[in-house]
């Protein structure tokens, strides 16, 4: 049973997509034509199938929390890395970072790196807190009421723990002259990071309970895989620091150590050029 009437129009009408002036025409024909009613049913069936298709699919979490099995496998691979070339090293770096939960790892050349620093300067000028008018709740909203900026809350470690619903890791060992200033956190978000700030920000230690939907940019050859308490870790170099007067300083050789412990991903950042990685490892291994 077929009809040669305007199929395209029926296909549109099936989903309410026919232009208003045509819709009546389609309705009138459909009332009188069983063949096209059948066609309509088929179009609607197709629409339902498409709508239901993979309806429950969810993006798998990229991160796997470092498990013993995995750690053993990577540790074995690490032994091979000593003599490995640059390419193997970068793959290892990317692999460790992604297993720690970073969504992406982007390796950039030295010149791209320098270009990014320039771009970052402009971005920072745009995103300086003093550019914005904060609402009483510490948020900045655009003209539509969407939040575009949130100041973190400052408090004690205990307050941070209460607000974020978990206990962050704290170091038992600290290098000479360093003392905890406060904890920073942003309540009410799916990101539950707690940032421990030492002195005036010379050292920061971040605990992350959830994987980071964030990308790490690694300068070619500027990252290295090592171990912390037998677990795979990565050191990268290069960090921005925000000064008291909102000035932004790039510290190209500042070390950043990322590793996993007790189900949390930890980031240790020392905002000082050439700071010895051994000290960061000592801090890392003392965390509990």
């Amino acid at each position, binding site marked *: 049973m077929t009809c040669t009437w305007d199929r395209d129009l029926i296909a549109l009408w099936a989903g309410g997509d026919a232009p208003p002036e045509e819709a009546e025409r389609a309705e009138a024909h459909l009332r009188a034509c069983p063949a096209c009613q059948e066609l309509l049913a088929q179009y609607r069936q197709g629409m339902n199938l498409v709508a239901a298709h993979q309806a429950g699919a969810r993006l798998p979490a990229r991160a796997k929390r470092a498990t013993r099995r995995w750690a053993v496998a990577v540790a074995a691979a690490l032994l091979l890395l000593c003599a490995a070339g640059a390419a193997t090293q970068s793959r290892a770096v990317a692999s460790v970072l992604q297993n720690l939960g970073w969504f*992406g790892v982007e390796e950039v050349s030295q010149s791209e790196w320098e270009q990014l620093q320039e771009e970052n300067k402009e971005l920072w000028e745009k995103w300086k807190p003093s550019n914005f008018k904060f609402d009483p709740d510490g948020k900045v909203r655009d003209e539509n009421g969407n939040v575009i900026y949130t100041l973190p809350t400052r408090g004690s470690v205990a307050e941070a723990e209460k607000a974020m619903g978990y206990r962050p890791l704290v170091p038992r060992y600290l290098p000479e002259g360093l003392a905890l200033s406060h904890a920073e956190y942003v309540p009410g978000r799916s990101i539950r990071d707690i940032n421990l700030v030492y002195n005036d920000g010379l050292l920061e230690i971040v605990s992350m309970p959830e994987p980071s939907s964030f990308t790490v940019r690694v300068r070619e050859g500027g990252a290295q895989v090592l171990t912390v308490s037998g677990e795979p870790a990565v050191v990268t170099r*290069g960090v921005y620091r925000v000064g008291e007067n909102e000035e932004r300083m790039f510290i190209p050789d500042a070390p950043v150590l990322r590793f996993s412990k007790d189900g949390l991903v930890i980031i240790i950042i020392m905002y000082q050029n050439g700071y010895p990685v051994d000290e960061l490892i000592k801090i890392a291994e003392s965390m509990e």
Partner: protein
Amino acid sequence: MEVTRGALYQRAEENALWEEHRDRVYRYLLRLTGERETAEDLAQETFLQAIRDLRRSPGAGANPVAWLMRIATNRAMDLFRRRRRFQWLPFLGDRHGGAAADTAEAVAERELVSAVLRRLPPDLAVVLLLRDAEGFSGPEIAALLDLEQAAVRKRLSRAREAFRTEYLRLRGDGE
């Protein structure tokens, strides 16, 4: 390269955007490509690009989902072009170990729909999915894809007809 303080504020918003919409973007890409790993990779690319765009013009539009879907669509289309997707694939031939079969006995409905979608030309599949799976309106799709509304309607009707025909054919009761 780690940015704290400034990034802590900014990252919260970027990630909130992604947290809310990641599954939806992934689902769309999974329906469009029919391949899990490909969809995951494209989702990641979408996110990376979204972050870059967001930083250049923060608060990109009043409709973040449409904007994400636009990026996702473009990335998928780039991939299809690179892969020259317009080849016809044997229908479950490898799985059943025999020659490509035109009948679809004992095939799960999901595999059938997946197979049908993969056979549609990408520009039709995109409009079909955005309208019938994702629920975007005609005008929204037109904006998302930079098309005239009439062009969207044309693709939509062709897509629904192509789906209908292909579904019937693969199911074994083609006309």
